Structures are given as structure tokens and as C-alpha cells.
């Protein structure tokens, strides 16, 4: 009898007092491991996968170039062909050297020597534009490049 009585008793409410703490810990975790988005994407940018990728050691001295097909809303302006995006704008291949040299000039002296160009290229883009960019970079003696990839099987790129 006593037992059955106990069962009918309502369960005590789960204390949610520590919920804010848990959420705060999550919050701090995300604040520390992420970086603020500095630019909006103007181009499609699905990076290819690679297993052997190495982490870029220094975050200083990195010039990011994104290459991909322009997003739908920019198609009327720049067309359908793959475009280069540097910081928040589209640039043409022949303007590339000027812009990159400008960015190099703005860098502190000690970063210039280790300047790396990180190519974030959409995996569907043809190699033509990538080759053009590489040729341009060679001409201004910026030889360190990095093909940005995500961790994964290379097979999935095909």
C-alpha cells in the first residue's frame, strides 16, 4: 500500500538553475574558437576536400583570394563566369597584381616576407582562371600559395 502511494506522488521538478551556466560555457567556447566573418561572400565557395592538408601556421600575412561563380544576385552585374573576390569586391585578373601589392604594402614589415596567398577556390571552377592567377602572382614574386581545402576524402571532389 505504502509503495503504490509513493508512485502516484508527482516527481520533483528538474532544477534548471545551472542551465544558464551551461549555456554560458557553450557561448564562451564558440567565442574563443571562431573568428568574426570579415567579408560577405560574393561568389560560390565550396572548398574541395583533401586528406593531406596542413594547417596554415600564421594567420598574419595571409592574403585571401576567393574564386568562384558569382552568386545569383550579382549575375546581372558581372555575368556567369567565375570571378575573383578580394575583400568585399570583385576584381579582374589584370587588376589583381595592383590590389595584392597594395595589400602587401599595408602589411607590417615583418609579415611581408612570409606573405602567403590563400586561394579559396570553389571546387567546380575550371583551372583556367586559377592558372591565370598563379601566373600573375609569379610575376610579382609572391610565390607562397596555399590551396585552401576542407578535411575529407579527395574522391568526393569529382
Amino acid at each position, binding site marked *: 500500500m505504502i509503495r503504490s502511494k509513493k508512485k502516484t506522488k508527482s516527481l520533483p521538478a528538474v532544477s*534548471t*538553475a545551472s542551465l*544558464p551556466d551551461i*549555456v*554560458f560555457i*557553450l*557561448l564562451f567556447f*564558440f*567565442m574563443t*574558437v*571562431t*573568428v*568574426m*566573418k570579415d567579408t560577405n561572400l560574393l561568389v560560390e565557395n565550396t*572548398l*574541395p*576536400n*583533401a*586528406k*593531406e*592538408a*596542413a*594547417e*596554415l*601556421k600564421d*594567420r598574419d600575412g*595571409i592574403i585571401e583570394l576567393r*574564386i568562384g561563380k558569382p552568386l545569383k544576385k550579382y549575375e546581372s552585374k558581372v555575368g556567369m563566369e567565375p570571378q575573383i573576390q578580394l575583400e568585399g569586391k570583385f576584381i579582374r585578373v589584370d587588376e589583381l597584381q595592383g590590389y595584392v601589392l597594395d595589400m602587401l604594402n599595408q602589411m607590417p614589415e615583418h609579415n611581408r616576407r612570409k606573405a*602567403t596567398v*590563400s*586561394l579559396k*577556390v*570553389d*571546387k*567546380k*571552377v*575550371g*583551372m*583556367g582562371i*586559377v*592558372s591565370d592567377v*598563379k*601566373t600573375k*602572382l*609569379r*610575376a610579382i*614574386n609572391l*610565390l*607562397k*600559395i*596555399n*590551396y*585552401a*581545402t*576542407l*578535411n575529407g576524402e*579527395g*574522391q568526393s*571532389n*569529382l
Partner: protein
Amino acid sequence: MPIHNQVPEVNAGSMADIAFLLLIFFLVTTTLETDEGLQRLLPPQENVPEIEVHERNVFRVQLNDKDQLLVEGEVLELDDLKQKAKAFLDNGGTSKGNPGHCVYCKGNRAADLSDNPDKAIIYLEHTRITSYGAYVAVQNELVAAYNELRNRESLLAYGENYAAMETRFYDEKTTLVEKEVLKKKIKQIRTLFPQKILEPNANTTAL
């Protein structure tokens, strides 16, 4: 009287909601760092003197418009590329006693593959329409071939993975003395299997 002295308790029930809002804000406005990739060194533009290379020392990899792979004149699947590249690099065709004999090579010593790893050149061709994804996939396989061979030699010589040595070298906690030692070891392994990937389209060679 005692009621007047008591400070009313602040209701903390909405604290979780506030924290959740903040959390969602940070999730939306930030990105996880994706700064990893295949690092490459382009050759300087000054015209490098032409060198004559024996055909057996060249490993031709070609990617066509449809992202199909042709290796040494044969159609190949991407999965088999690494094995083939390793066999080529590790061949060590120069026979014993001759200059350039590769002591550490464990390959078949075939007559149509490379003389020694130092002479072996991988020649990667692609068209303008080849997709970047396919190109990276191939680069990845080639780097994997080099890395596996380097790992093998590194384990034999120093009992440590090549990749592990590299990570340790770039680690901030490693002392300068250790770094000196590591640098020498890494350099040694790199000279055993130097990465020579040639791209006619942009002439990329590597580390």
C-alpha cells in the same frame, strides 16, 4: 519589520534565454577557422635553364576536360594514383655501384621507372576546363605518396613520423634547441624524397 529588511530575490529564470540569444548571435556572425590547405611554392619567374630529363624519370599525370585521369599513357582511377606514384618514386632504378644508386629505395628497380627519388619528377598537366576539385584531389594523392615515403624513412631513421616532426617543429612549446635538431632531421628526410611536381601551365614546383 523583518520583511522590510529583506532584499527581494532577482528572478534568474530568463538568464538562460539571454545566454541563448548571445550564443545564437555568435554562431551566426562567426565562422570556424578553415585555414588549412595544400601549401605550394611557385617557382620564380626568371627563366630557369632548361634541363634534360630522361623519360623514365618523368611521371606524367594528365587531367582532361572531363576530369578523367591519364597516368603514363594509361587511364587510371584516382584511388590507384597514390600506389602508382609511390612505385615510381621509390623505384631506385640505378643499379648498385653506379653513381646515383638509391640505397633506401624499396621499389621494384624496374627499368621504365625513376632512377632515384632525387631525379624523379612528377609532371602534372591539366586543361583550362579541368575542375579545381579534381586538380586538388590529384595534388592530394601525390602529396600523400610523398608523405608516406617520407614517413617510412623518418620512422626508420628517427623512430618518429615525418608529419609528427613537422607539427612539433611548428609548435610554439618546442624549445629552440629542439627545433634546431628537428630542422636538421626534416631537411634530411626532405632530401631523401624531394617533392618535385612540375606544372607546365603555371610551372609549379614544390617544397
